[in-house]
C-alpha cells in the first residue's frame, strides 16, 4: 500500500477495520485523544439519533461532586423557561427535579471516577472489562 493510499485509509477507514486499527494505534502509543478515531451516529428513517443516558456509563470526577451539585441547581433554574417544552417532549419536570433525583435515576450507572482526568478513567475501564460489565448489568436491569 502506498503512502497516499494509507493516507486515504486514515480519512476513509472502512468500518470493519476501525477497531483493529484503533488497537494498532493504541498498542503503538499513538492514540492520544486529539482529532482521531471518530465515528458518527446518523439519522435513520428521517429520525434524528438520540441515546438514552441509561444505556451509557456516566463519567463524573469524584473530586468535583460538590461543584457539580452546585452548578446543577444554577443550570436547572436557567432551564425553567424551557420547562413546558421539555415536559411535553421528554416528560421531565424541570421545576421539580433535584440532583438527588438524578443520582437515584442513574443509580449504578455513574462511575465517580477517582483518576486525575477522564482520559485516565476511560483507559482504566478499557483495561478492566469486568468493571464495565458491572455498569452494563445495571443498565440491563
Amino acid at each position, binding site marked *: 500500500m502506498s503512502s497516499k493510499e494509507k493516507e486515504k485509509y*486514515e480519512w476513509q477507514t472502512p468500518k470493519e477495520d476501525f477497531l483493529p486499527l484503533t488497537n*494498532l494505534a493504541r498498542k503503538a502509543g499513538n492514540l492520544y485523544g486529539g482529532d482521531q478515531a471518530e*465515528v458518527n451516529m446518523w439519522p435513520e428513517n428521517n429520525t434524528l439519533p*438520540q441515546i438514552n443516558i441509561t444505556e451509557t456509563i456516566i463519567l463524573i470526577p469524584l473530586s*468535583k461532586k460538590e461543584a457539580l451539585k452546585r452548578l446543577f441547581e444554577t443550570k436547572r433554574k436557567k432551564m425553567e423557561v424551557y420547562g413546558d*417544552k421539555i415536559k411535553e417532549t421528554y416528560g421531565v419536570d424541570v421545576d421539580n427535579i433535584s440532583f438527588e433525583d438524578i443520582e437515584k435515576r442513574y443509580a449504578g450507572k455513574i462511575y465517580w471516577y477517582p483518576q486525575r482526568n477522564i482520559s485516565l478513567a476511560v*483507559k482504566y475501564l*478499557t483495561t478492566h472489562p469486568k468493571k464495565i460489565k458491572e455498569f452494563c448489568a445495571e443498565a440491563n436491569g
Partner: protein
Amino acid sequence: MESFKQQPKSPEAKESDETNEAKIEKDFVGMSSDKIELLASHLMRPDGFIKALIVGKILTSEEISKKIGHGFARTHRGYYMTFPTPDEKNQTYHASNDYVSFSIGVPQTMYTRSSYVRAELGGTSPGLGFILPASGLLNQNRVTPGWGMFKIEESLKEIKKRKLMKNNLISIAIL
C-alpha cells in the same frame, strides 16, 4: 557507619490499580486486544452535560433547536462562534448537527481544555461524559466512521521496532 538508604517503592506499588497512573498507561498500551474492551466516549461541557442528565438523553443540536429552542444549547462548533447567545441564524450557520459523534479508544480532550469549563467546575477540568462499548455501537447500521487518523505507517513502524528490540533482548539473554 553509613546506613543503607531505603529504596523508594515503584509508583505501581504505592497506589491502588484504580488511581495508579503509571500502571493505567502501561496497561492501556501493553494489554492484548482480546483482554480489553474499547470504549466509545461522548464528552460534554458542564452546561450540556447537566442538561443531558436532566432530559435523560444525548440529543443532536438540530433536535434541541427544533423541539426545545435555539438558546437551549450550542453546537460544539458554534460554542465559541455564537458567543454570547446562539440564535437561529448563527446556530444554523455554525453547523446545527444532525448526528452524534463518538471518540473511540480515548476521549477527545478538547472538552476538558477551555477556561470556561475550568471556571464552571472550579479550577481544574477533569472531564464529564458518557461512554459505551465501541463494538456494540459500531454494529449499528446508522453508525459510520468519520475518520481514523491512526497514524498507520508510524504505528506499524513503532510496533515492528519494539518487536525487534524484544527479539534482540531475548537473543542477548540466550547468549
